[in-house]
């Protein structure tokens, strides 16, 4: 493990992607990053561009119009990357997703198109639970290892 990989585990940067849904999980996520719950003690920082991020945090179910954007944002995050799905909508589709008959506007959870590493269910999850999920994500990020190894296509 090189010095860059070791540093990444101690300061993982986080990009927050809101796909759809009711906005409740976003409020809880921002509360988790704010000083009262203080996720920065793990070195987590919210960044404005997915190109700078190590962890992609998704909230909400994915509307069909939003599918290309989710794929594009996921591809823009450099390797190694971890995806954390927050909330019932991002985990299983929750209230908005139906199997039969199919919803005309909503595809369902983001794990139907991008690989999700950690699920944080709840409606909405408490900030403590979100921090717990992100810490699980950091552990997976450490296990994924070096950025120099390229994923075989």
């Amino acid at each position, binding site marked *: 493990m090189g010095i860059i990989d070791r540093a990444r585990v101690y300061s993982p940067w986080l990009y927050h992607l809101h796909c759809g849904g009711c906005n409740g999980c976003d409020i809880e996520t921002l509360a988790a990053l704010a*000083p*009262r*719950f203080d996720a920065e003690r793990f070195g987590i920082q919210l960044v404005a561009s997915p190109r700078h991020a190590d962890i992609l945090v998704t909230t909400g179910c994915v509307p069909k119009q939003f599918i290309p954007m989710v794929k594009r944002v996921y591809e823009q995050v450099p390797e190694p990357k971890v995806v954390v799905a927050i909330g*019932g909508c991002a985990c299983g589709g*929750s209230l908005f997703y139906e199997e039969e008959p199919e919803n005309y506007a909503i595809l369902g959870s983001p794990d139907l198109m991008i690989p999700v590493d950690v699920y*944080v*269910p709840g*409606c909405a999850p*408490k900030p403590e639970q979100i921090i717990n999920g992100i810490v*699980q994500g950091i552990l997976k990020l450490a296990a994924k290892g070096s950025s120099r190894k390229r994923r075989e296509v």
Partner: protein
Amino acid sequence: MSVPAKILKQVLSRYSSPMTLKYPSGVDPSKKYSQIPEGLRGVPERDAEKCVGCRACFMVCSGRATRIIDLGDKRTVSIFLFRCTYCAHCQESCPEEALKMTSKFEFTIGEREDKGAYVDTDLEMLRCKSCNTAFLPKKMEKRVFERLQEKMNPLVKEVVLSDYKKLEGYCPECRRARSTNFDTHTKKWLWLEVK
């Protein structure tokens, strides 16, 4: 805590500085999760002995998280926690009070197929005497009979119970086919009026 003490605490909190909560302990460092309010709704828990598989929780589930899976002799009542919104409708509707919301809120899962994401109960099914299809959990059949006896009108009790013994173990379709043999069948009462 009394009301004046609560007000005093609120007023005093105005003059205290903002603080960061310690992670598992919260406000009170000696206790775990001391910042969690009482009555917080978390993961539902099912008492496997009390549950009879009556589908009441399935009918009211708002997030469609509860599923009933019938596979031959086994009925599985399961809650998929990824879709659960902790609305507690299932707790309200459960006639046997088998479901209870716990205050457990903190859990994360790595995979969708993980066992921790489901709250499952398996029940044995009863098979029909004549057509051999599984139609009702054994527990539910027993419990319905008990409830029937409690609430029955004493005037008709004897007739109904003797009829119940005749139809015991038949599925609804087969019961309908044999319904003319029953003492409570309307045909018999009509016959009396004609006489």
